């Protein structure tokens, strides 16, 4: 399990996305409203993926009769 996914599992999605911004960035490229919106939405999805994956692995292991290892549970889930 990566540190990111550990931390992501420990925090609800609301905490991940609602830390206030302090000021505008200094970038010269247009990030695009749609891209910002997608980024924000993905954070929630990624969290859901990380949270669900160990349960999915255990369910799969139960159904297939194979043992679910902690290492397998700890793998990142985002791809």
């Amino acid at each position, binding site marked *: 399990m*990566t540190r*990111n*996914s550990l*931390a*992501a599992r420990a*925090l609800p999605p609301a*905490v*991940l*996305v*609602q*830390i*206030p*911004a*302090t*000021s*505008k*960035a*200094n*970038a*010269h*490229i247009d*990030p*695009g*409203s*749609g*891209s*910002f*919106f*997608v*980024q*924000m*939405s*993905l*954070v929630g*999805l*990624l*969290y859901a*993926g*990380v949270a669900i994956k160990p349960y999915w692995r255990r369910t799969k292991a139960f159904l297939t009769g194979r043992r679910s290892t902690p290492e397998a549970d700890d793998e*990142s889930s*985002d*791809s």
Partner: protein
Amino acid sequence: MSASRHPSSFRDPSGFLFQRGGVLLRQINPSYSAHYDRLIESGLYEALVKRGWLVPHEEMDEPAAANVAHRVLKPERLPFVSYPYEWSFSQYRDAAKLTLDIQELALKHGMTLKDASAYNIQFLGSRPLLIDTLSFEIYRVGRPWVAYRQFCQHFLAPLALMSYRDIRLSQLMRSQIDGIPLDLADILLPRRARLRFGLLSHLFIHAKGQSKMAHSKRDAASYKVSALALNGLISSLRNAVSNLGWKMPDSEWGSYYEDTNYTAASADHKAKLVSGMLDEIEPSSVWDLGANDGRYSRLASSRGVHTVAFDIDPVVVEKNYLQARASKDPNLLALRIDLANPSPALGWDHRERSSLADRGPADAVLALALVHHLAIGNNVPLGRIAAFLARLGSNLVIEWVPKSDSQVQRLLASREDVFTEYDEGGFVRAFGENFRMKHSEPIAESERVLYWLQR
């Protein structure tokens, strides 16, 4: 001494590149001072340079090129600038991974990449590195990654298209100067690409989100993402990139050296002759045109000469790059170029991306077993070939391949022989208009002749 601003350096108000007295310098504008100072004081610059991820620079006591400068830097100069549409698949993927590695390291130092342009990555030999020192800004808590869209357009979309559709789609980067629009990637990618979560989210949903939100009046500053979530996003992008692969197909050139009329003795003799000519020329840079897997390019790079090995075939360029990467060759850069249609000047004012010829000349050009492909395979008259090669290099080591050679006969097998001027006399006359003859020698056990010509 007058300063001339670099024609490709104008989009970022943080600073720009300029030349003074033949030296490449970078001005940092006062508006970027806090970000530059943080880059240095946070230790990020040192960490990046230590890893070989960022081009190192010296701070200079030089006058500004325009108005007032916060600093003037002298970045280490690269021997050759390449572009994404010239990279092999693994080169492109390595450049993408490096961009994400840099972003992750930057976040650890309280900074973030404010752009993720593929053009900011260059290769020093086979090693990618970031060349834009002004790409960093202070990370502001809650701010999403401002370069997310650019990363997807410049890296993820072209890699996905190369992986899922066709390796030649990297050439879309030629026409799309700011990366491949995501709605276009959405149309071109097969449905099965949606089965990958990374592509589904960062390309397909991203494309749909862009079109849905195109007319949104919501202030972009109202979108907030924590640093933790940002790291998750980078990790997800890394997985999406890492999961993309390219299975090399059999290619016309992939087994070229197993399918030639060279005997072992003639191949050895040719290598010996090329080595001898390189030793006499003592070049500081070599371009090997039609380099195949880089067999002869390595005669130059192993002498410590920076060598660019060009070939039209993505398979052999990929193999050449992987070999150079495995051996950590600091002097060999493999690139894909079609000499019949080489990279043109592109972008604003035709000067943002240089043509191949504008990036030369090299001290020496190798054109081994190439002339027949240009003259007969592409119908380019010998005089035009000579004039073009004279633009690319001061010295030319070129292999004459006569019409009786089995490789030429193969090219003529399915077409009428209209090449009445294609003989050694015509070759010498055509190249004599652009070069002086320095030396020539027949290659043992073959009908071929190796020439060293000088402009």
